[in-house]
């Protein structure tokens, strides 16, 4: 049995204990605390985590579980693969990045990330994309640029939305889908922890 821990994300300090389907089959999520911050972790046998589809999905699922647990909570997500030798090493990293995590927590407090893809069906008249973007932006706090990795994609953005505006955002999506059902398929995903709206780099030397 190793002391290694796998980190999912950072929260305001709190006691959190959940049963999850975690990375490498871990089931018990708990927190490692440091000066007002908590990191959601599970135990793990290795610090070299395999980037399999299952593990990546588990990482996302755990973040989503924390994000939506009870009334929901704000979590600064860590990128996949953040396994640390032990809790003490992790606290060392928190010590170095405390200000960055604190700022990120403030920046995304009370928000979730939502994903929207508009995919062309090849039929009908395409929507006015600038009008679609304006409608989505009007209920969002922030958004990413388009990542048009396929010729079929007309729009592919992530939106930072206040929790209380999530229903309004969903209603805009429903309207767009209804108005353009012949010409576009709408893929609406989330809520996610706001991956695309925080940028904290933790080097391998810290682990």
């Amino acid at each position, binding site marked *: 049995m190793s002391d290694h821990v796998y980190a999912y994300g950072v929260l305001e300090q709190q006691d959190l204990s959940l049963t999850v389907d975690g990375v490498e089959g871990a089931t018990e999520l708990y927190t490692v605390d440091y000066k007002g911050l908590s990191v959601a972790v599970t135990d793990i046998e290795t610090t070299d985590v395999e980037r399999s589809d299952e593990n990546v999905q588990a990482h996302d699922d755990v973040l989503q579980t924390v994000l939506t647990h009870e009334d929901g909570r704000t979590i600064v997500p860590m990128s996949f693969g953040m396994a640390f030798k032990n809790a003490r090493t992790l606290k060392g990293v928190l010590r170095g990045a405390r200000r960055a995590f604190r700022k990120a927590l403030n920046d995304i407090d009370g928000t979730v990330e939502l994903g929207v*893809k508009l*995919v062309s069906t090849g039929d009908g008249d395409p929507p006015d994309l600038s009008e679609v973007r304006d409608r989505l932006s009007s209920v969002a706090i922030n958004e990413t640029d388009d990542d048009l*990795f*396929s010729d*079929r*994609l007309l729009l592919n953005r992530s939106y930072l939305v206040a929790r209380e505006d999530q229903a309004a955002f969903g209603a805009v999506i429903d309207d767009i889908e209804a108005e353009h059902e012949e010409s576009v*398929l709408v*893929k609406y995903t989330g809520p996610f922890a706001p991956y695309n709206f925080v940028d904290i780099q933790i080097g391998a030397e810290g682990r």
Partner: protein
Amino acid sequence: MFIVDDLLVRPFVSLIGILQAMAINELFDRSELHDQLKENQLLYELGERSKDEYETHKAEIEAELELAEEVQSRLSGRVEVKG
């Protein structure tokens, strides 16, 4: 004469090396392959590709990606071309 010949030919040899590296970079474009992986996932999620088709495409693209990474890593020690 040898020195003069060498000076005259060297720019062309260098240019050929750069063109060759550019061609290889284009042939083994990792970002394009990553985009293909994402497109494959999208088409599967939209129900336009079956699970079998999705997995076959994914395995093919991942094999190409592995080859591209190997070629790029071998090349990186010799010629670096920044686009």
